[in-house]
């Protein structure tokens, strides 16, 4: 079958790879209908998560139709139209039982790498390097779904594919940031990044009752989308003093909850950006760029919460611990616990409360994957997310 593979730093291509097989009794094989790019892929593609092998299949935000199930699959059957959580969860370990699904103890088949780097191993993810289990990604015609009864969710009839696919990754990630960040009615919430994750975080904060949500980016088309589809206030961080704007708009207090939705490749205005980049490229002085994290910690009100949704992999330089400690902040982060939120989010999508379809700015056949990543990575042609159709049909089935 064909699949979009990582071939080396900043190199992806469509290749022929072996078909997936049922390897465990709780596995299923999914025929992929839609598979989206995600900001996390960019960190793999650029080589900042250095556990990729040439030929690895990318992709983790996806949906499709189940075509085969293992003998111990109970909930799903061939023909089910499902959205699959990007994180694989067994549903029965202590972490899964406590709804910390991305921390699943049983889904990462390569625990040694992350255990050695981070002390404990998080769960497995599709198409997300060998540090996260080495599972093949979803940018392919078929994909194996381990623990399918826990990892896949039937899509309600009223929800179209282009909306449902984002219940896999970006929507639950954004929701988690607002939910576990503790957004309360009346809060002022700041969101760094107007990608799909930032947009979903902002919308979730509004649904949870935030009175003002202020989102930042430097690309006008992304700020426009945030304003138009989500309804958040927007700020171009290249044109203003972010700290001053946030202070003013939170009545002098600082935002109650600060959500970082940018991650380790963040851009920063001014000359220090080149220096940060250089330091990161050495992989020694620092592995991750920390501008947005610093800004969030410094802006946050006393006793507030900074929630890190953006992916970090290793070391960040100059974290303002003094501010964190003396202001009594809570700093929290997580890979997304999608299994906790997906059914609820699908309902909200069905009711129209949560809009996601607009995120798919560039639907295209899988064959055009390399072009899709070029548009997405370099923020060309107003691309927010390129979404691939492995069946080769043009957008929306036409």
């Amino acid at each position, binding site marked *: 079958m064909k*699949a979009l*593979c990582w071939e080396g730093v900043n190199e992806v291509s469509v*290749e022929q*790879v*072996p078909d*997936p*097989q049922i*390897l*465990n*009794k*709780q596995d299923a094989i999914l025929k992929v209908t839609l598979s989206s790019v995600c900001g996390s892929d960019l960190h793999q593609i650029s080589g900042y998560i*250095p*556990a*990729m*092998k*040439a*030929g*690895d*299949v990318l992709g983790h935000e996806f949906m499709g139709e189940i075509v085969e199930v293992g003998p*111990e699959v109970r909930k799903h059957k061939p023909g089910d139209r499902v959205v699959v959580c990007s994180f694989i969860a*067994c549903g*029965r*370990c*202590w972490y899964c*039982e406590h709804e910390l699904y991305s921390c699943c*103890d*049983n*889904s990462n*088949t*390569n*625990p*040694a*790498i992350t*255990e*050695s*780097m*981070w*002390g*404990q*191993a998080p769960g*497995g993810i599709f198409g997300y390097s*060998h*540090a996260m*289990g*080495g*599972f*093949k990604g979803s940018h392919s015609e078929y994909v*194996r779904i*381990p*623990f399918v009864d826990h990892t896949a969710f039937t899509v309600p009839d009223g929800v179209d594919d282009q909306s449902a696919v984002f219940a896999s990754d970006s929507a639950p990630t954004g929701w988690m940031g607002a939910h576990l960040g503790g957004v309360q009615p009346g809060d002022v919430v700041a969101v760094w990044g107007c990608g799909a994750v930032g947009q979903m975080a902002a919308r979730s904060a509004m649904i949870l009752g935030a009175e003002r949500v202020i989102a930042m980016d430097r690309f006008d088309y992304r700020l426009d989308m945030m304003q138009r589809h989500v309804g958040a206030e927007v700020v171009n961080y290249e044109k203003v003093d972010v700290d001053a704007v946030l202070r003013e708009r939170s009545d002098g207090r600082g935002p109650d909850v600060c959500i970082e939705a940018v991650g380790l490749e963040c851009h920063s205005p001014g000359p220090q950006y080149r220096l940060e980049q250089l330091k990161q490229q050495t*992989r*020694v002085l620092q*592995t991750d760029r920390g501008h947005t994290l610093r800004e969030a910690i410094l802006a946050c009100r006393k006793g507030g919460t900074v929630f890190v949704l953006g992916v970090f*992999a*290793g*070391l960040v330089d100059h974290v303002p611990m003094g501010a964190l400690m003396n202001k009594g902040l809570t700093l929290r982060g997580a890979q997304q616990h999608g299994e906790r939120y997906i059914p609820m989010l699908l309902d909200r999508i069905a009711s129209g409360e949560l809009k996601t379809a607009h995120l798919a700015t560039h639907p295209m056949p899988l064959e055009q994957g390399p072009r899709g990543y070029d548009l997405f990575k370099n923020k060309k042609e107003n691309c927010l997310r390129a979404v691939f159709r492995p069946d080769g049909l043009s957008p929306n089935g036409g």
Partner: protein
Amino acid sequence: MGRMSTAEQRPWPVEVQLVVTQRSHGGTSSRTGAAALAMEGDMSVRNLILGALAAGGGAVIARRKLDPRRIHGRHDDPTVDRWHVVFVNRPQDAVAPDGQLPAPLAELGDAVEVQVRRAAGDRGTALAARVRTPVPAGLSEATTRILGTDPRQAVRTALRHSKQLVETGEVLSPDKPGSTRLTLTNLPLELATRHARAEGRL
């Protein structure tokens, strides 16, 4: 079948607990691999993975020289294995019904000593094992770990497999057949994934 001692028959030895928390193998010099990165200035992150896994022995040696908290006495002997522990989200009688250990551990027979006890806070069961006979140290540790013949590797794998079997009913298989190609740059990673469940800090 491996011999088993339950918490009732044999209380968890205090000195062993100290060893478990303070003398962990796994190849990096402090709680996170990140610290090793800062120390070993010439290593890229990719090498860090190799450093942490393949050449873990070397890093362990470095750690022994650096760590001022080392405990003295019998368990300081690097050839005496420490306890390796997984916590299983099931009661003791589900982990070892009638004293019968999960198959992956039972298969190691008398080579290992095993404990099954209540986990703190009633979080299921702690399943612990250690190699009875002297384990490789120093240079021989580095070599056996790369070759995959260090007896602790079998213990780690058996513990991880046992936990999965008890919790989920099967051991999750890595994705096969692979689609990757062996290249010079991914060689260290290849080595690391080959010992995927046998290494780490467990």
